């Protein structure tokens, strides 16, 4: 009994008088053949969906048939809802009886529709009768509603009003600040233990970190510092040549590299390379309960994981800084000698005149601080990481952002302080 297109009646109040073709014996879902014995269409076209709602006295009858395939989308049970509402107003409906008729194909599309109808019936306080459906379909509906919806999971509540959102965001910022201050506090306590010789960690870890942050970062530091030196020289050359003061390019490059750029740029490179690696490593350890295993052994994760990394980077970063200074000055000299036709000796003497050892000390001191900050940001994001792969990814990104933020803020603070003390 193939179902024709005009059988699809979306509106309610159609008298349900069509002869009942008997219950479905079929127990297969989404099968190619018909579920109640009707042969499949030879042309492979799907029958349209049949929904007929008819009410007869206290029983509201819903007939479903045709082809219910997910490829055709889902159907909203609006007609049933309407019929229930009308019936409820008249106060006569006691039972919602569903039966199938000429059901050819059915997959989750029908199941979603039926569970929605089931919920509507329940909400309206009407008995839901599925005896007219195939046993397989009825069983699946029963299964889908067997376990009551879990409430109290903390995931309730739909849209949050904008004002609430602002409030929540503000509270989140406060919590974040609190969390960062706490971490710095814990780290200070940990350094206290280190000084008293009570911090437990492996010096071997420090060596590994030195190796990873040092020799393995030389190439990238060379490229970045060299290019920065050249860029500074170019900018200086274009401006200073106009006044015939090309030689002062050496001063510009020398001061900028030693005071600012070498320390800041190595800090940023190491934040992206080593800081991110710290966050990923420690975050993964958090996700795999390795940190719990440390804690339960009586080892402080701050001592065991964070301290060696902070020490390692604070030791290695100044060395990288010195190297970056050298490469940057060389880059500047290259431009100075080629673009400005200065002799290397001239350039070098001018650089020596411009640079006072205190400039190096300033950059050196900054790089120690930056190294520690990069390590702290990476470790903090790792330790505070959640227990999933996504959380590790977030921790890594956030470690780099935090580290760069720390570097820039601290650099600004240095600039103000050095200005005040006239250095």
């Amino acid at each position, binding site marked *: 009994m193939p179902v024709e297109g005009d059988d699809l009646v979306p509106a309610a109040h159609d008298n349900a008088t069509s002869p009942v073709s008997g219950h479905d014996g079929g127990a297969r879902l989404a099968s190619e053949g018909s579920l109640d014995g009707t042969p499949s269409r030879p042309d492979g076209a799907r029958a349209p969906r049949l929904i007929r709602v008819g009410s007869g006295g206290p029983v509201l009858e819903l007939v479903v048939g045709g082809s219910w395939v997910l490829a055709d989308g889902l159907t909203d049970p609006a007609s049933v809802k309407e019929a229930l509402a009308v019936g409820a107003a008249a106060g006569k409906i006691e039972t919602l009886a569903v039966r199938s008729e000429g059901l050819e194909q059915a997959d989750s599309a029908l199941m979603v529709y039926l569970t929605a109808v089931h919920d509507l019936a329940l909400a309206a306080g009407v008995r839901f009768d599925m005896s007219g459906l195939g046993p397989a379909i009825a069983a699946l509906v029963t299964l889908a509603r067997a376990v009551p919806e879990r409430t109290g999971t903390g995931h309730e509540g739909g849209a949050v009003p904008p004002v609430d959102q602002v409030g929540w965001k503000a509270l989140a910022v406060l919590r974040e600040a609190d969390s960062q201050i706490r971490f710095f506090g814990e780290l200070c306590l940990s350094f206290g233990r280190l000084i008293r010789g009570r911090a437990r960690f492996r010096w071997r870890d420090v060596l590994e970190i030195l190796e990873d942050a040092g020799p393995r970062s030389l190439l990238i530091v060379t490229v970045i510092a060299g290019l920065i030196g050249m860029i500074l020289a170019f900018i200086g050359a274009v401006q200073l040549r106009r006044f015939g003061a090309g030689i002062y390019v050496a001063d510009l490059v020398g001061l900028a590299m030693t005071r600012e750029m070498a320390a800041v740029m190595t800090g940023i490179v190491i934040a992206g390379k080593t800081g991110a690696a710290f966050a990923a490593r420690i975050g993964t350890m958090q996700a795999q309960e390795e940190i719990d*295993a440390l804690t339960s052994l009586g080892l402080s994760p701050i001592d065991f994981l964070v301290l060696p990394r902070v020490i390692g980077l604070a030791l290695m970063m100044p060395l990288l800084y010195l190297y970056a200074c050298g490469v940057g000055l060389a880059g500047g000299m290259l431009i100075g000698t080629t673009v400005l036709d200065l002799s290397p000796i001239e350039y070098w003497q001018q650089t020596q005149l411009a640079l006072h050892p205190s400039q190096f000390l300033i950059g050196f001191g900054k790089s120690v601080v930056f190294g520690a900050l990069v390590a702290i940001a990476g470790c903090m994001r790792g330790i505070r990481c959640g227990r999933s792969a996504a959380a590790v990814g977030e921790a890594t990104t956030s470690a780099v952002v935090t580290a760069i933020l720390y570097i820039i803020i601290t650099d600004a603070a240095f600039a103000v302080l050095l200005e005040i003390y006239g250095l």
Partner: protein
Amino acid sequence: MKPAGESNGQGAEAVSKSAGIAVEHLDMIFGDYVVQRDVNFRVEPGRIFVIMGASGCGKSTLLRHMVGLIPPAGGRVCYDGESYWEASEDRQVALRRRFGILFQGGALWSSMTLAENVGLPLGLYTKLSPREIAELASYKLSLVGLRGFEDYLPAEISGGMRKRAGLARAMALDPAILFFDEPSAGLDPLSSYRLDRLLLELRDSLGTTIVVVTHELASIFAIADDCVFLDAESRTAIAWGPPKQLLTQCKQAQVRAFLSRGSQDAG
């Protein structure tokens, strides 16, 4: 393995001295979300105690509260009468030193070899020489069938082997209390059976108190002297006793259904 600072070297003193645990009115609450409330039970020394319940009912969370990883929202966890969360920090560390914990995935430290993993607790809390530590680590690994894998990294071995290596690490200091979080999850039936035998042996030969979180019925009936059932619906512990007794005599239908795999479903 050279941790900085001196090691206090008292670990071995606790060897095979079994300890009892009492959980009193324990509340496990995160923000507004109540995991379990008012949980009460006692673990007798030298017995195997199973924490059971449906997935997601808070079994592992209870374990984390017991071993000092999460402070409870209310109530106490006492070891031989001493409340863990009311003790001083030094005392907490001393208490923790008597625990051995096997985490769900083994939780081996991924940057260390298996021998180093097992050796780290020994290096921290004993005065053994590195050679002795290596020897002991090798012995502990052989107990769980991992002889010859001393120099492997955790990433180089299978999940089941990681779990067994985690067990070797948990047993490194011959702890008075062993905690197991889902020990047989991910193990094949034979390994799981061997693990059960190992637990029984530890209890019988060393008198170790063992707390196991699991929902494997076969294991529960094979090893548990006592168990507690955490209910996900009412969010508290609703039954406490030997499993066989609970199966036949428990008043709560869901406990009988759980222990009989639903065949005694009262619904």
